[in-house]
């Protein structure tokens, strides 16, 4: 554990995957192997990733805690820090502070069906819990993943989507927005809420985990309610502007909850009790 709560772990970039022209995934390992061995986290938590000299940026830890020795993060080039990160090469240093935040209550989901729904760049926060549940496959019943993006080139984790699609114990439905397909696209075509309604997964003994841009969530929620899902069985992650990551800088609160401490994972029931300030 760091001696100072503000000091980042120094990580080395082991692998870079260019998911889309402006999205990268980094595999990071701890430069200090002792720190790496002691490091633990749970699915759903996030960290503050930094380039020393440019600043910090908040991303989830996009790998599963069941896989030791490294952590992964996925980000889109959007501002100063993410552009600086995207210019780094294998072997360069990335600062990492974490893990912060609460976790997906995966233990409570044992014995249930899992329905993962994600859109676009919102797959990374879910990938940690998807991998986590797949690595502990026998603890869960049916696992369904519905993932959509604007176009084929916007789909992230393409090689993982292939892996998940090939597994017999996972039902994977991928879709692109109308007009986003390529001639050899074999998946669905349509917006995620429509495709979900078409797939009509059962809500009995099922937990839904939903992550996506606000507009997708707005239209997917009614579909889930129609399918019979209860508010307490739908989970999502929120994001908000953050700096410290542990509830002191006063920035990320939505009403009285701090997204960095009481989130980023919220059940829909909890979300409904929050003011519309996110």
């Amino acid at each position, binding site marked *: 554990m760091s001696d100072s709560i503000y000091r980042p772990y120094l990580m080395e970039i082991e692998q870079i995957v260019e998911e889309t022209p402006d999205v990268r995934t980094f595999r990071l390992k701890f430069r200090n192997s002792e720190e790496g061995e002691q490091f633990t986290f749970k699915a759903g938590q996030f960290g503050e990733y930094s380039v020393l000299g440019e*600043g910090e940026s908040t991303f989830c830890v996009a790998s599963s805690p069941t896989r030791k020795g490294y952590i992964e993060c996925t980000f889109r080039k959007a*501002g*100063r820090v993410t*552009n600086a990160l995207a210019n780094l090469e294998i072997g360069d240093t990335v600062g990492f502070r974490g893990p912060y935040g609460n976790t997906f209550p995966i233990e409570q989901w044992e014995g249930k069906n899992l329905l993962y729904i994600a859109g676009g760049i919102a797959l990374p926060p879910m990938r940690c819990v998807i991998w986590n549940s797949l690595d502990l496959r026998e603890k869960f019943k049916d696992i369904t993943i519905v993932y959509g993006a604007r176009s084929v080139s916007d789909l992230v984790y393409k090689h993982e989507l292939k892996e998940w699609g090939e597994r017999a114990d996972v039902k994977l439905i991928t879709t692109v927005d109308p007009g986003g397909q390529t001639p050899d696209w074999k998946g669905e075509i349509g917006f995620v809420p429509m495709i979900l309604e078409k797939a009509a997964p059962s809500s009995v003994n099922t937990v839904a985990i939903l992550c996506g841009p606000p507009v997708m969530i707005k239209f997917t929620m009614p579909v889930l309610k129609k399918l019979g899902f209860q508010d307490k069985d739908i989970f999502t992650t929120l994001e908000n502007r953050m700096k410290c990551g542990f509830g002191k800088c006063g920035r990320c609160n939505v009403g009285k909850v701090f997204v960095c401490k009481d989130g980023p994972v919220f059940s829909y029931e909890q979300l409904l009790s929050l003011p519309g300030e996110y």
Partner: protein
Amino acid sequence: MNNLISKAKELLEGKAVHVVIGYEAGPTGVARPAFITDPSGADMLIYDDRCVQNLAVYLTKPEVKSLGRMAIVANLPVMRSIMMLISEQQLFAESIVVLGISDKGDLLDIADIQVMQAYIEKSDLSNPARDREPLTALNKLSPGERFSYWQKELSRCIKCYACRQACPMCYCTRCTVEVNQPQWIPVQSNTLGNMEWHILRAMHLAGRCISCGECGRSCPVGIPCHLLTMHLVDQVHDYFNIYAGTSDKMSSVLSTFEPNDKESFII
């Protein structure tokens, strides 16, 4: 005073405007901006020496604009600010009603922009008397002494940006210093960075400042930063023989070339 109140009531009752921006007295006796949307609220309007805030700062705020058509109580600095905003395409002259107020507190009949321009042109547009003395005193100092003075004052600056927020001409939705690619000046407060901030602001206001003095008055730690912008008012007048806010068709003095501009520094 009664003329102002009855005029405000008339405008609101007739729905000629949806909000009258003026001044009211707070419980501690200071005057503060008021936004009257109901004719009965117009009784709260006041105008006296306590009314110093430059109300034109609200004309570019989306929350105020969303209330509807605006009438604004305008003393000379506010009128000049309105002229500047119109000349910089931030405001349409037809979208507001100007309730002009003379420095004695009498309601003026400002029917349209030409009337306002005529009133401005016959007024004294130089820096206010109370600020001319400190400006003269500062100009008498040697450059080294003056630098030390500002270094000492600006070391106290806490970068709260009250000076910027109080200024009607600082209407940029994203200020230069709030950009981080690149980060032009330090985010934190330190003497050098503070000096960079105030010099930057004074330069961005050169040819645009109308000497209301609100920047200095708003400063919570009492730095007279209005002296920097007002000094440039004098300099612009010396070089280009203009004062800001005198016409709705003014072009920016530092980015426009006139054939008869002084070229003594080149030739």
